[in-house]
């Protein structure tokens, strides 16, 4: 089969786009070259769009009108520019969740149009299977990401929502979706089955994310990233377009890989995160915890006492958590670090892989506050240094510093690698109140003899520390 000159050019543009995307991803492996990677991918995207338009006009002749295309691109660029330039860094997990929703929606709708226009008895097995998967995954990604967005924003409770028979009914629905796609292979003209697949996808997105708690959002966001990619790859199979397959595979595997890393950092399996309803039914636990006054009381210190400890410190390791994002304390952290450094103190940052609500969340916030990235250290690099450190300053982190993960076999987080903040000479914990953490798990770090709790809004407390140090 020989292609016309124009079609050859179109295919070469797609090939160039695919290569540029892979090279862009490769450049993203190093902070020094990462921005060049973005530029390469941008050029790739322009090549792919130009190729598609050329194909639609000059090769297949499918494109006959421009008004809708121009309108959608202009509006999309305006909204995208707004979102790209003005969304605050603290809202990054929400923005990523929302963009997965857009991705799922776009792919799902392409699938519906595919079926509307080309569906019917003459659809090949490949086309009908791929279109079915595309619509199911697209719909699931769309509503699932909106759910994740709602949970992050607080529109929907961050606690897992569970009901009897939940996992069984979800598994049944997944089986039903696959069964209907199988049916479509033999009866491609059964439109009801096609729309039932789409409807089940919409429903599954809601129901699968419902039982997953806020602290597990990093894994969910990664998985939705993966689904969005796989949906795009399915579109590629349906349309016979390689650049879609390649992008979908890259996207799908990136999300999957990140999700695996996150689960591993929590010492839990994918299945446990998805179906375990982690942190569910904390009421019973909280009551027993409240009813037993047995344990030692936490050592609550005043701002002045804590500032004294910091003034005397020669080395400090900051352990940021989701609480830092909530109170937008990253700039206050940086100011305090400056004051400490002016005082001759060495300041470093220990970043747990699942601190925050998405992979790399803390790194981005600290970068925004101008903390040089060579001061940030991963868990395995810095963990042995805590014992030789004067102060571990825990800013809004909880589970990732809970020693129960090391020594309490009955704890739900037993086995999770944690930052050894408790090993520092003094552990200063900034926390809003003495309530148990998100998952309702008691944190014995708070009652250790070398721990001092400073209660209140982290940003305010940090600012007071800085002022005290400058006196």
């Amino acid at each position, binding site marked *: 089969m020989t292609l016309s000159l124009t079609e050859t050019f179109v295919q070469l543009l797609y090939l160039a786009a695919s290569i540029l995307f892979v090279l862009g991803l490769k450049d993203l*492996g190093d902070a020094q070259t990462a921005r060049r990677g973005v530029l390469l*991918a941008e050029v790739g995207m322009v090549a792919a769009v130009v190729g598609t338009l050329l194909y639609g006009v000059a090769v297949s002749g499918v494109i006959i009108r421009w008004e809708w*295309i121009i309108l959608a691109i202009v509006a999309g660029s305006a909204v995208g520019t707004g979102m790209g330039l003005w969304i605050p860094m603290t809202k990054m997990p929400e923005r990523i969740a929302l963009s997965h929703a857009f991705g799922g929606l776009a792919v799902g709708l392409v699938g519906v149009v*595919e079926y509307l226009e080309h569906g019917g008895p003459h659809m090949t097995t490949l086309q009908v299977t791929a279109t079915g998967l595309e619509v199911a995954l697209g719909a699931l990604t769309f509503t699932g990401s909106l759910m994740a967005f709602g949970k992050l924003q607080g529109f929907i409770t961050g606690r897992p929502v569970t009901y009897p028979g939940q996992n069984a009914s979800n598994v049944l629905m997944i089986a039903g979706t696959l069964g209907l796609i199988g049916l479509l292979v033999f009866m491609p003209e059964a439109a009801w089955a096609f729309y039932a697949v789409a409807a089940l996808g919409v429903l599954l997105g809601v129901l699968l994310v419902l039982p997953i708690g806020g602290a597990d959002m990093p894994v969910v966001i990664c998985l939705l990233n993966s689904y969005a990619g796989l949906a795009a790859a399915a579109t590629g199979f349906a349309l016979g377009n390689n650049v879609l397959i390649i992008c979908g595979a890259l996207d799908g595997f990136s999300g999957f890989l990140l999700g695996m890393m996150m689960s591993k950092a929590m010492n839990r399996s994918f299945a446990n995160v998805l179906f375990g309803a982690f942190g569910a039914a904390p009421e019973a636990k909280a009551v027993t915890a409240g009813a037993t006054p047995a344990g030692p009381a936490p050592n609550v210190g005043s701002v002045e006492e804590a500032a004294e400890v910091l003034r005397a410190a020669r080395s400090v390791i900051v352990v940021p958590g989701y609480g830092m994002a909530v109170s937008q304390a990253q700039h206050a952290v940086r100011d305090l670090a400056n004051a400490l450094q002016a005082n001759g103190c060495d300041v470093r940052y220990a*970043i747990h892989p699942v601190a925050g609500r998405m992979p790399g969340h803390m*790194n981005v916030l600290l970068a925004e506050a101008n903390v040089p990235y060579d001061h940030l250290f991963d868990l395995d690099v810095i963990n042995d240094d805590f014992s030789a450190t004067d102060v571990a300053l825990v800013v809004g982190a909880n589970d990732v510093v809970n020693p129960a993960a090391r020594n309490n076999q009955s704890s739900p987080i037993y086995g999770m690698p944690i930052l050894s903040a408790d090993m520092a000479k003094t552990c200063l914990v900034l926390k809003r109140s003495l309530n148990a953490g998100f998952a309702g798990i008691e944190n014995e770090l708070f009652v250790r003899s070398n721990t001092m709790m400073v209660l209140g809004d982290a940003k305010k407390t940090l600012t007071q520390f800085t002022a005290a140090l400058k006196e």
Partner: protein
Amino acid sequence: MSLTLIFGLYVFFLAAFTGYQVISKVPHLLHTPLMAFTNAISGISLVGSLLAAGGHYGTVSTVLGAVAVLAATINVVGGFLITDRMLRMFKKKGGAR
């Protein structure tokens, strides 16, 4: 099985393997920009939606296609802008130090 499917599977698995190699080298530091970046390139679904929005189809298909173009364009433009905005912030030595 059709030959198209076989070719497609080759492309899919080789791309997945390449992706695995390349992405596993991205440090924790850059994982948020990585997600924003993959979001942006997932806007490649434009390849399908542009044909749907401009095609010689009925009103329903055209409108659905236009919504798909809108959503994908938001991801492409917003995704690339935000990735670059984040990457610009990563500095090796802080200004004040």
